[in-house]
């Protein structure tokens, strides 16, 4: 989607009779990217599904106030980023998985997940990423898997480019150390 399309979409959205149609296009164009980002953040398909739907519902409610200063995809990513962090923090509070078992649990759940096709090294990489602190995890996913630029990541996370580079550097070292084990 180029900038013109964004402008056209927003103009379409401002007309009440075309509002839902405009939003359907936005969903269709962005749902995969948002889903895979949240899936990598939380691993579980159902959780990712919930977060993705919440992201779009919030986007619908906030689209009226969207000023169009950034790309729609960046704006949606920003919502998804905060939704994912909120979900992870809520899971921590509930204590769904004990910390000492989290590594084993993650690896086993990926192995048993019918919606995951990676081999052993892929599973190990996903486990290493899942064990990162949530913000480093988000940075690693956006940089390594989605190949986003630091400037866009800065818009999404509200963090400076320098801080993001440092976060990515630390995340890479932690993942490398994890993969070197065994």
């Amino acid at each position: 989607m180029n900038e013109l399309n964004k402008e056209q979409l927003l103009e379409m959205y401002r007309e009440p009779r075309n509002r839902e149609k405009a939003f359907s296009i936005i969903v269709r164009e962005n749902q995969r990217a948002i889903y895979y980002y949240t899936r990598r953040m939380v691993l579980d398909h159902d959780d990712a599904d919930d977060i993705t739907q919440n992201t779009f519902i919030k986007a619908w409610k906030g689209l009226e106030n969207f000023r169009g200063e950034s790309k729609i995809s960046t704006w949606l990513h920003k919502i998804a980023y905060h939704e994912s962090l909120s979900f992870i923090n809520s899971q921590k509070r509930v204590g769904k998985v004990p910390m000492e078992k989290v590594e084993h649990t993650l690896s086993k759940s990926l192995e048993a997940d019918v919606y995951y096709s990676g081999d052993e090294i892929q599973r190990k990489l996903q486990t290493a990423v899942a064990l990162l602190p949530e913000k480093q995890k988000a940075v690693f996913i956006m940089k390594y898997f989605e190949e986003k630029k630091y400037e866009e990541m800065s818009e999404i996370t509200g963090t400076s480019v320098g801080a993001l580079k440092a976060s990515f550097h630390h995340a890479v070292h932690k993942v490398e150390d994890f993969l070197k084990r065994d």
Partner: protein
Amino acid sequence: MSNRLHDIDPTLPDGIGEIISQIEREENFLVPDGYFNWMEQQITGQVKLEVARNSGVELADDGYFDSLESKIMGRIHLQEMAGSDANEFQVPSNYFEASEKKIIRASAGARIISPGWKAVLYPAMAAAAVVAGIMLFQPVNGIQTDSFAALLEKTELTEADLEYFASEEDYYQLWMDEVDDLLNDTIIEPMPNELQQQDSLATIPNEPALKNIPAEKGNAKKPIDPTTPRPTERQKQEKAISFDDLTEEEIWQYLLEDGGDLFEELK
């Protein structure tokens, strides 16, 4: 798939790492067939619901009202079967009769907490504190130089200690016994001769305060029972004054001063 990260951002510190760069980057997360079509419909459906809510339209699921009647009638039927005022929380038969007996039995054996138990507990605590103190100050070589009784005598309990360890009633009784003993001692103890000559308000130096009570003339002269440190019952009682206790001179003095009428009769 080639590793494009180095091309995208050559300034990346330390790159992405030797091991990570060797891992093929592929999409391993799968979704059910038709998932994204379903998701789009799901989200747009929720948006329509949101729009309808905001416009004040009440929505219900398809077929909701078809099943509502049967649901309501089913609940009414269940309530009729159970009785209109039946309690939904059921208990075993004779539960409350058995409970009453249990409660009565428990009440009979229950410990009633009252000030009475303090009379046993607090002295026991005091004794325990004394024993602990003795054990604490026992010589290291284990040779006990003083008997328990001797140490007990040396142990001083202040009034505050007694007040703490004894109940109010016990403390009052102890205090009364002490007062009684001190009064008896004062009565029994003969006033030194030299002090009897002095002013009756004079005090005896270095003696307990209660011993400062001036020795009454009558008390000092009373006989002491040698078999007991306490006064005899006769001593404890207030003597009625009779003519036998008075000298002839005193009798005449009384009659002259206060017993004018009696004097006239005797005459």
